């Protein structure tokens, strides 16, 4: 089935079965490898992308259900890595293996969009769907606070 998808501000056409998870369309059809496969049941968050700014699990989202919604993957957040969340991640050198981090960054981006200055409890609530097997949670939390501060600075300028 031919479907049109809005991915990272571009319209892309794919010919796939509509029940294919969005994750596999992004990865293996559109060659956007940023979203990762971790569990296939929405329990790890490695596949997180933004759908109209909301963090969703692309492994559980059938591509046929996406419709007109705008999909943002890590590649589209800022290709240069200049989004405040990416910059905070880089400044604190958050990753160990790095496999979960695209999902973490997008989940954090969605959180900060709704809650520009989250408390630790709000971070815990928003981020607990994203597993980091290496255990970089301390740095992730720091990076979210740092991105929140940087975002505030950007808005005030």
């Amino acid at each position, binding site marked *: 089935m031919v479907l049109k998808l809005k991915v990272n501000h571009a319209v892309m056409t794919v010919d796939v*079965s509509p029940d*294919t*998870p969005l994750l*596999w369309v992004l990865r*293996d*059809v559109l*060659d*956007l*490898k*940023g*979203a*990762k*496969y*971790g*569990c*296939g*049941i929405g*329990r*790890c968050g*490695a596949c997180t992308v933004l759908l109209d700014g909301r963090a969703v699990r692309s492994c559980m989202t059938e591509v046929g259900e996406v419709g007109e919604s705008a999909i943002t*993957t*890590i*590649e589209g*957040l*800022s*290709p*240069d*890595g200049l989004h405040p969340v*990416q910059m905070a*991640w*880089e400044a604190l*050198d*958050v*990753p*160990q*293996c*790095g*496999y*979960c*981090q*695209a999902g973490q*960054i997008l989940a954090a981006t969605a959180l900060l969009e709704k809650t520009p200055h989250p408390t630790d409890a709000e*971070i*815990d*609530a928003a*981020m*607990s*769907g*994203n*597993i*980091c*097997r*290496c*255990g*970089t*949670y*301390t*740095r*992730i*939390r720091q990076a979210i606070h740092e991105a929140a501060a940087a975002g505030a600075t950007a808005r005030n300028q």
Partner: protein
Amino acid sequence: MKMNRRSFLQLTALAGGGLALGLYRSPLARAQRPGAPPDFTPQTFIHIAPDGATTIMARASESGQGMRNMLPMLIAEELDVDWKDVRVQQAELNEKIYGRQFSGGSGNTPLGWEPMRRVGAAGRQLLIAAAAQTWSVAEGECTTAHGRVLHAASGRSASYGELAAKAAALPAPPLDKVKLKDPKEYRIIGHSQAGVDTHGIVTGKPLFGIDVTLPGMLYASIEKAPVFAGKVKSANTEEVAKLAGVRHVLVIDGGITPAAYTPWEPGMEPGIAIVADTWWQAQAARRRLKVEWDLGPAATQSSEGFRKRAAELLEAPPAKTLRKYGDVDAALKSAAKVVEATYEYPFIAHVTLEPQGATAHWKDGKLEMWSTSTLPEDGRGLVARTLGIAPDDITTHMVRAGGSFGRRLQNDYLVEAAWIAKRVDAPVKLLWSREDDIVHDPFRPGGTAGLKGGVDAQGKLTAWRHHLVSFGDDKQMTSGGGIGRDSYPAGFPPAYAIYTSAQPLMLRTGAQRAPGDNAYCWVAQSFLDELAFAAGRDPLEFQLELLSNKLAPWSAGEKDPVGDHEPSGQDVLIPERFKGVLELVAEKSGWAKRRKEPGRGMGIAAWFCHRGYFAEVADVTVNEESQVTVNQVWAAGDVGSQIINPAAAESMGQGGIMEGLGHMAQEITLVDGRIEQSNFHNHPLMRMRQAPKIEVYWRKTDYSPTGLGEPTLPPILPAVTNAIFAATGKRIRTLPLKRSGFSWA
């Protein structure tokens, strides 16, 4: 990357050869046997272009421990270039050129520390020689800084790029003769350098094994029996071959004969490989498979059966005596207090977040592989033997892995990808599903330990008897199931005995981060806490006293009561270092002034493994529903004189602690040979809301630096269970937590 040999400095040097890795308790003792002939293989690590662009090759596999930083940083420091000017490139697998290219046993730091610095220093010396010749001055009058050679007397200087071509034509100095920097001069070592792949990671670049893409590539998924080594009796392969996107359906007969002892790489597991245009199509087709399995003998295994047999073996005389000194029975008889306890820990799976997989391409009789293995040369050999091809016909690209934790030391997935590729006229990417990854993991084996200890009227430990029941045959324990004969507290109590017994296991097991130590640290440090409590002593004071009491040291000429084993160097526990981290963590955590209140407590534990010393204190709260919150953890580590990349080292410490906490809630159980767990809902990992504040402190000592992958992990388990005891008076002797009535909040 292609290099023009005439315009680049190709540093040919001698480094790192002649080393073999053992994956168990003391890998380096065997690796660095004195007198073993060095393997004088030329190395190529440094490339300097005429414009000064400096590329340093990272020889080790990278799965998150920061090896792409750590080893090149050692070279860059002695080469005397600025880190910001260095480009790090992953080397392809070629141990003849690069020496050992593995990441395991926390071995890269101790094995790389000296040779990598010498490679860098040799490069610097060549550049100085080139400059001295150009200016007709003495080499001794030249210095270097920031990628330039300087001659202060004449005010001349030249960049490494300008000197590279000339330096390349000079003979490389012998590595053992090069001059190394005084550590006081370090500008890279000991200074945090961000991960070389961090920018690529945060921008979603295709860096991982799962991201490998080749023109015309097909995707594979393998259905295996629900029971280890179960074979395909019959299947609707012709029907499945007709499904959308499916190109091949291949039956794998496999090569495993289940037996009491399952080797490290027992052969291919049988199954049915589906090769399709996309992975999702392969998966969809897999769900339509109808397979009749011959499950074989492993179907008789169950966790309940293991438990019953372990209880019988604990009561029986032990099969093996690993080490024994003093008269334990007499010491127990005369003890003022005797404590007896049985500890039980489960099988657990590695669950790297990137499931296992590999890409392979068979073309014109040669195989090209993209591998996430952390022991890639072993993988190459195994593939060659399995496929019946020459190792030299295999090229291996080393690709970043989404975690390993010991899992990727085994190469089963690599062999599968190669086996499929040899039967398919296209490159093939194999990917395991999460369910495959859990059910077919080489597990950390479970174990049961019977402990007996005695203290005298003064509250001193007088006797320690440890009987570990694990898995294997009468000759050997399964990987990760054995215990080191010198495991702490061996050598400290006046009377001591350690025994093992084994029961058969038809399952693959492997090395999970701090193999062995991740389990028996919990046993030993919990039991010491029990003994301290029985003696009415503070557990820290009790343990410091014990550490001052080395009664059976390994020393030259000492006759070991059992065998003639005599470890040496940093593989031997040095009491002062063990005490040092305990004292440091006690100070940082405020141990002496800790609050004692119902429902809240602190626990302390320490361990020595993989040449590193760590002590950890956990502060926990336990609510009325027996839910445990770890509020804070303090860790103190001693891995020698340098923390090479401090920010990464801190992160590694925090990660080891998070992983240890994760182990406490995990278990793999079997019923009729079938693994009951399948995904993160029933083999849980720690999440953000469960992550405590973790402070990591270093005690720098005058020893050569050693690795951090493993030693940070073990102490956290007993630190937490000892804290739960302090909070509730309940001793946890069975893991996971839920089997002792507790859970994470």
